[in-house]
């Protein structure tokens, strides 16, 4: 057990086995889901730490050949599936393990609970780990679909009908995206005859003796990249392929939104980063410069459109959902800059580090924001931005967490949002892509616009008095609201929650995770140099410097 190359296998197998255990144990002990999940995910955290210490320590890149089929000859393709852990995968594994435990804390009291939820949730974690660790493009598809199926069921897990509609929309769009990815994989297989990422990169570069030179300009390879990129853009919710995402985030149970906003689209963006850099490699983009330009353009549109749509929303969760469209646009944008033929070595390196920092930072920030929004919804039933009026006084801790995380999202130094944007802008400027810097500035201003609205409501708008609340409340609010409004004055607002809800306000887990995310977002902002150091092996490997 001292060989760390088994860690990737255990990281994937453990949650999937635990999901089956939860289902079986749930037949006998219906309340056993939480403890089993907790044990599994704590072990998962330990495995992630073990993997990270090996990868960032002296082992470097870890490869595990499933089934140990090996290679028939020195220069021949791998027969079995390989699991690969490098600096980027280890970072993602750590992030997933951390957020997986946080979501467990969030849903402990506030729900959703129950055996089916925990089983689907553990499957989701297993799928995410698989996407992060696989070294095989078809295996990546399978894990993307495991992640997808788990997410569809989780979105619909509170059995509400609007959530089912949102989940079905997500399913149809998401599966079409995954199928497009599979089509791209098929083209790659036809062009090269292998599915292993490392072998693909070597074959595309023309290394094996049976190919005559690099295949980068082969129409089959170009079409393959187009299909793969489109499929993964659907998964990462890049404008205009984001249509599934706001509905799914908005209608899903609050605890599920935290998990999927922090992890699911993140893994789509990670897959794009991985395929672009480790399979197609910067040499592909150099051979056909228009590809990088198209990526940068599409991502720039996503960055601006996501922010603009976020400003127009009135519901809190929808605002944050559209904001994710913009943030994942930034990650893809940074990837586009990193592989852009005009970018020099320093520009590419800065953009790549910026992409990874922003990917990790966004997961922490957006997970925290949705947790804070969930807490405020539990405290005062706040669902729209107008509902937030005066909550800075009523729920000071959650409001402060939301405000801090909002500022992080804008990119106020020294938090992590600033750090990621800083690296990306440096990369864009060094690559002489000035319009991109303008796009990022524009998106920052728009982000400021919707975060400022949150601030205004939280801290500078007085809470409505009881009568106003009753008059403004839409027809669908429950009876206890109307009763409280009838009963009169603003002093009753506090007791109203006690009457309607046996567990008043946000449970401790929700508050702790929201505050923890805010603190982590700021701490990570100081870790720029450490991030850059830790990613150095990956950057050197993919950029070949």
């Amino acid at each position: 057990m001292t060989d760390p190359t088994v860690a990737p296998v255990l990281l994937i197998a453990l949650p999937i086995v635990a999901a089956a255990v939860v289902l079986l144990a749930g037949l006998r002990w219906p309340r056993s889901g939480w403890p089993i999940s907790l044990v599994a995910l704590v072990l998962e955290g330990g495995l992630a730490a073990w993997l990270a210490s090996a990868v960032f320590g002296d082992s470097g890149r870890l490869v595990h050949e499933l089934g140990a089929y090996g290679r028939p000859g020195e220069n021949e393709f791998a027969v079995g599936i390989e699991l690969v852990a490098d600096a980027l995968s280890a970072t993602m594994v750590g992030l997933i393990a951390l957020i997986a435990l946080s979501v467990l804390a969030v849903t402990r009291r506030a729900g959703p609970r129950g055996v089916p939820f925990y089983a689907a949730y553990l499957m989701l974690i297993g799928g995410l780990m698989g996407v992060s660790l696989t070294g095989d493009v078809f295996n990546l598809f399978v894990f993307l679909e495991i992640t997808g199926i788990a997410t569809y069921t989780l979105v619909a897990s509170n059995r509400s009908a609007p959530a089912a509609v949102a989940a079905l929309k997500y399913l149809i769009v998401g599966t079409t995206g995954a199928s497009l990815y599979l089509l791209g994989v098929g083209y790659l297989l036809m062009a090269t005859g292998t599915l292993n990422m490392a072998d693909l990169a070597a074959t595309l570069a023309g290394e094996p003796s049976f190919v005559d030179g690099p295949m980068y300009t082969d129409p089959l390879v170009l079409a393959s990249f187009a299909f793969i990129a489109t499929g993964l853009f659907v998964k990462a919710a890049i404008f205009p392929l984001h249509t599934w995402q706001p509905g799914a985030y908005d209608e899903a149970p609050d605890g599920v939104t935290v998990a999927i906003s922090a992890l699911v689209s993140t893994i789509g963006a990670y897959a794009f980063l991985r395929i672009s850099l480790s399979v197609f490699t910067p040499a592909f983009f150099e051979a056909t410069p228009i590809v990088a330009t198209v990526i940068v353009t599409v991502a720039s549109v996503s960055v601006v459109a996501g922010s603009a749509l976020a400003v127009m929303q009135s519901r809190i969760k929808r605002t944050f959902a559209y904001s994710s469209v913009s943030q994942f646009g930034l990650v893809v944008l940074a990837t586009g800059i990193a592989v852009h033929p005009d970018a020099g070595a320093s520009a590419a390196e800065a953009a790549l580090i910026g992409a990874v920092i922003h990917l990790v930072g966004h997961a922490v920030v957006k997970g925290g924001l949705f947790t804070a929004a969930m807490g405020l919804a539990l405290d005062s039933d706040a669902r729209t931005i107008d509902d937030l009026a005066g909550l800075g006084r009523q729920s000071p801790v959650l409001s402060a967490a939301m405000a801090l995380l909002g500022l992080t999202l804008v990119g106020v130094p020294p938090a992590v949002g600033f750090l990621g944007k800083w690296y990306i802008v440096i990369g864009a400027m060094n690559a002489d892509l000035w319009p991109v810097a303008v796009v990022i500035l524009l998106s920052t201003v728009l982000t400021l616009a919707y975060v400022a609205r949150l601030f205004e409501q939280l801290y500078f708008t007085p809470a409505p008095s009881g009568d106003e609340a009753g008059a403004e409340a839409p027809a669908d609010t429950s009876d206890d609201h109307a009763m409280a409004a009838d009963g009169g004055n603003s002093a009753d607002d506090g007791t109203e929650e006690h009457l309607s809800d046996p567990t008043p306000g946000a449970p401790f887990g929700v508050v702790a995770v929201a505050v923890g995310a805010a603190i982590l977002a700021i701490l990570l902002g100081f870790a720029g140099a450490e991030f850059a150091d830790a990613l150095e092996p990956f950057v050197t490997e993919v950029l070949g410097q």
Partner: protein
Amino acid sequence: MTPLVDVLTSRYAYVLFALLLGIGLYMIVSSQNLVKKVIGLNLFQTALFLFFIASAYLAGGQAPIVHHGGKEATYVSPLPQVIVLTAIVVGIAVTAVALALLVRIYAEYGTLEEDVLREVRSDD
């Protein structure tokens, strides 16, 4: 004219693949009925299976079970077949989840037509 006939006679599986892909995608995008959208999704995936199988076809090829010493025969690549098997399983799982969601939607709204659904939901 001749190249077209040539493609149709020698590469008809790929032509069929492109047709199925297009029909599936068209159903997903244009159909108002949610069940038909799911059927379109299945058709889309089936097109992919056909593509993989067609790409693995080899005239006179044998199943890739290599006996000791018998290396002179022509074998087909097992990889596309395995991919299709896996993709079929994934497709079934996705369809099962989709149908479960459809049952839930129908129980709540009493319709599977997208435009009716939109009206019902805006009335809520």
